């Protein structure tokens, strides 16, 4: 049985067993949501606050299609289970959320239940948004109500059978959606830490990419923020580990990266570019710093694995390729150039267990993000056609085991699969 079929069978079983409990959960969501009628605020401060929360939640990522009208939906989200399409959030009554009540909107965001009562998929990260208080969600609504209505019919559920059966999510929710309710500050931590925790765990839904997933696409909560592979690229570890995480970065370094896309060690590219453009660069530096403070508190492995010996033939070959092709920009010590060329030394992307991003970038090149504060979108040239698969493997093995880095060797076979 292939993986999707297996998952499908398992999910159906889980759904059947858990159906009744889930139904009662659904009812609880209904109960929790007061039945007040819609009162969308037109207060400018509320709307501005809503816009800020929309940035914090990076709602654009899924709800504004490339080149499309803002929040009119249409972004294709490829999941391991199939295709979802981001719905239209404009106040259009026919195809957007114009005729939704506040309660319907809150239930969707916070509990993953659509306005018609059907289950939504966790492509809408309600698992994390669950922590966002109703008042904040209504501010988001207030902002969305100010957008020009766009008539754009979206068929969101484009998953293959059996995943297209929305009721399956009842079982999934029972297993993987604990419904913590509103974020509860930890009184033993600082206000800044709590603000960061709220942004990271709640609206920011950072775990959606950076936490490993289980067989059913749910977070492996005991390995939170230890990195995952999304769309064939590494979402690196965010834990406070120098061997594989953000241990070498100060909170200020993390905040600078989130605000500008660049810091002394790294230059954001790939999916994180979009997060920075639409979300974190639009947050206050104080909020980005709060996120950083929270991330710095996440424990990670403190003992580094042993690097491959420098005398290993792959390491020797890799060192020569590195000197020829890489060292001019990434420097002989792997330190990169602040603000423009990423450091390879102690980088979580470099030390990731599976070096997919690393190999992708060497083969195909990559481009960092330009922001208001750091407008230079520097780039890595493609080396496909210049280096063969064995060269790429050797130089990556070298990079992954030099300057304090330690990670498994890369093989030509691994590289060849990434073309």
């Amino acid at each position, binding site marked *: 049985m292939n993986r999707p079929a297996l998952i499908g069978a398992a999910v159906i079983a889980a759904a059947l067993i858990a159906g009744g409990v889930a139904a009662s959960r659904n009812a609880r969501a209904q109960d929790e949501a007061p039945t007040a009628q819609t009162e969308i605020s037109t207060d400018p401060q509320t709307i501005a606050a809503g816009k800020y929360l929309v940035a914090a939640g990076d709602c654009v990522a899924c709800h504004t299609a490339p080149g499309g009208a803002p929040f009119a939906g249409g972004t294709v989200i490829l999941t391991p289970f199939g295709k979802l399409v981001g719905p239209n959030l404009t106040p259009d009554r026919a195809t957007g959320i114009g005729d939704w009540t506040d309660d319907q909107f809150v239930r969707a965001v916070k509990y993953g239940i659509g306005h018609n009562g059907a289950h939504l998929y966790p492509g809408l990260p309600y698992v994390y948004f669950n922590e966002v208080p109703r008042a904040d969600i209504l501010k988001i609504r207030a902002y969305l109500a100010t957008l020009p209505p766009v008539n754009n019919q979206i068929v969101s559920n484009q998953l293959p059978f059996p995943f297209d059966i929305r009721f399956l999510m009842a079982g999934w929710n029972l297993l993987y959606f604990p419904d913590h309710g509103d974020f509860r500050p930890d009184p033993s931590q600082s206000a800044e830490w709590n603000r960061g925790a709220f942004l990271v765990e709640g609206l920011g839904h950072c775990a959606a990419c950076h936490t490993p997933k289980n067989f059913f696409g749910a977070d492996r909560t005991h390995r939170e923020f230890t990195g995952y592979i999304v769309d064939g690229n590494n979402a690196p570890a965010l834990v406070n580990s120098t061997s594989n995480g953000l241990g070498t970065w100060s909170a200020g370094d993390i905040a600078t990266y989130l605000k500008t896309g*660049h810091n002394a060690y790294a230059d954001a590219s790939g999916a994180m570019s979009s997060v920075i453009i639409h979300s974190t660069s639009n947050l206050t530096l104080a909020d980005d710093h709060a996120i950083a403070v929270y991330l710095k508190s996440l424990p990670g492995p403190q003992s580094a694995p042993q690097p491959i010996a420098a005398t290993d033939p792959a390491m020797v070959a890799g060192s020569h390729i590195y000197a020829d*092709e890489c060292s*001019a*920009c990434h420097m002989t010590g792997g330190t990169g*150039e*602040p*603000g*423009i*060329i990423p450091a390879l030394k102690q980088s979580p992307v470099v030390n990731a267990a599976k070096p997919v991003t690393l190999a992708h970038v060497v083969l195909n*090149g990559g*481009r960092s993000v*330009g922001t*208001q*504060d*750091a*407008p*230079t*979108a*520097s*780039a890595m*040239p*493609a*080396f496909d056609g*210049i280096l063969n698969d064995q060269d790429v493997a050797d130089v990556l093995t070298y990079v992954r085991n030099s300057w304090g880095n330690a990670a498994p060797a890369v093989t030509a076979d691994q590289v060849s699969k990434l073309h």
Partner: protein
Amino acid sequence: MATTLPHKDVAIIGLGWTGSILAYELATAGLDVVAIERGPWRDTATDFPPSWAPDELRYAVHLDLFQRPAQSTVTMRNNIKQTALPVRKFGSFIPGNGLGGAGVHWNGMTYRNMETDFNWRTHNEQRYGKNALPEDMTSQDWPITFQELEPFFDQFEKLAGISGKAGNLNGQIQPGGNPFEGPRSAEYPTPPDKQPFGATLYAQAAEGMGLHPFPIPSANLSQPYTNPLGVAMGQCTYCGFCDFFGCGNYAKASAQTCVMPALVRQKNFTARMNANVTKINLDSTGKKATGVTYVDDSGQEFIQPADLVLVCAFSFNCVHLLLLSGIGQPYDPVSNTGVVGKNYAYQCTSSVNIKLPGKILNPFISGGAVGMALFDYNGDNFDHTGLGFIGGGVLQAAHTGGKPLTQLVSFPGTPSWGSGWKKATKENYQIGYSLGTQGAVQSYRDAYLDLDPTYRDPYGSPLLRMTFDWHPNELKMSQYITGKLAEIGKAMGGTEIFATPAKAPYTVIPYQTTHNTGGAITGTNPTNSVVNKYMQSWDVPNVFVFGAAVFPQNGGFNPTGNVGALAYWGAHAIKTQYLKNPGPLVQA
């Protein structure tokens, strides 16, 4: 039938160094700015990736980044009696094309005019008498002083992140810098480049002779840098592919690297690429520009109305547009009337090739502006009494690379192909070294630009005609300073010293330098100049001209430092004076 486009506050012709600086300054001041550029869009990352951009055949031989003669060219003659012929392959100079212009392929030597370069005629006449300048020499004072322009030199250097060592900081002479420079208000933004072996030997020899070598002020950055626009730059890798090339390491300052990342974020800025401006349009009085006409790459013609027109093309292309548009009176050398096209000048280069037996120079370790220079024989830094010329030039050890097709150091008697060439190349690659001069060129009554009577461009307009030759002053100057350079080469331990000072006639065939200046010169009144001290047209006050076309004559060093400073100087005048009260900033 031309399509008339919506009005803009500012139309900028050309998107190189000056166009991008003016666009950024005026867009951030709130004006709606369109830049219209003849060539393609260029982007540091995607056009010049270091994995393949160092392609000598494509860029240095086939001149990929440059103006194609089919787009437009110039006709050339040495004197007024000859019939000019079109330049069908650019050789002596190679104008840029596309975003970044000639600032994409420049080497990055970023000098400033010295104080006496500004009051050049007055200074020489005071020191050497009223007859110091021959009758036909039309060099004149700039209408600006070093002190006025100093903050803007500084601003340009900070934009570009120039690597260097101050020689005169607020009047205090600094060891290791150029003691002949005017007083700087600040040190260079980044420290000097590392020096290769050849340049190190040159500096040692020069110092031993009592001369004053200093690291060339370089736009090949010695370390990573973030400029005041927030734009990040990388550090030079000394790859030796600067001249003719774009830099994908973000290490060579250029418009596409230093300005565009910030400029493209301005919502009130638009760039139109592959769009050739054919004319600046005037109203019925002829005293006011109404905008520009351009033709896009599909041949469609557009009229872009604008309140302000900034001519920011390559130097002689600016002059061409003024002539085609009827702005200012064309210069006529016979009647000695008019100003547009007057005082075209150039750079008088020369070289001294030497062999340094036993040395391993590794000439491939270099950059376009990596090297050592000295100003002891530049400007009026030495006594010209009895020499029979004025001016001088920078003497440089700036061996910009060791590229195999175009940069082998040649010596007399070496075959240019075959087994003899191979043998000589093998013997000389590591021991051959080339020193060079960038000599000043004075302006003359018979060196000028006008419209060609015969040849036309693809739009049906007359080509620009260049009338130019070396004059005795430059030939004597080149002889003198090249001789001094050969002395340094000898002191380096050089053998087989092969000096080639400039010799007449001037020819457009071998590459010399793209330091073409003049033709739309700046001066104190409409009878001696095309633009006033703010680079504003005397005749049409809502037209400004930027770039080396405004130089009254050319000094003994590369022009880009001056060009950048004048762009900021003009932008400042527009922002602080012109916009408040549009009209002439200097009364004629």
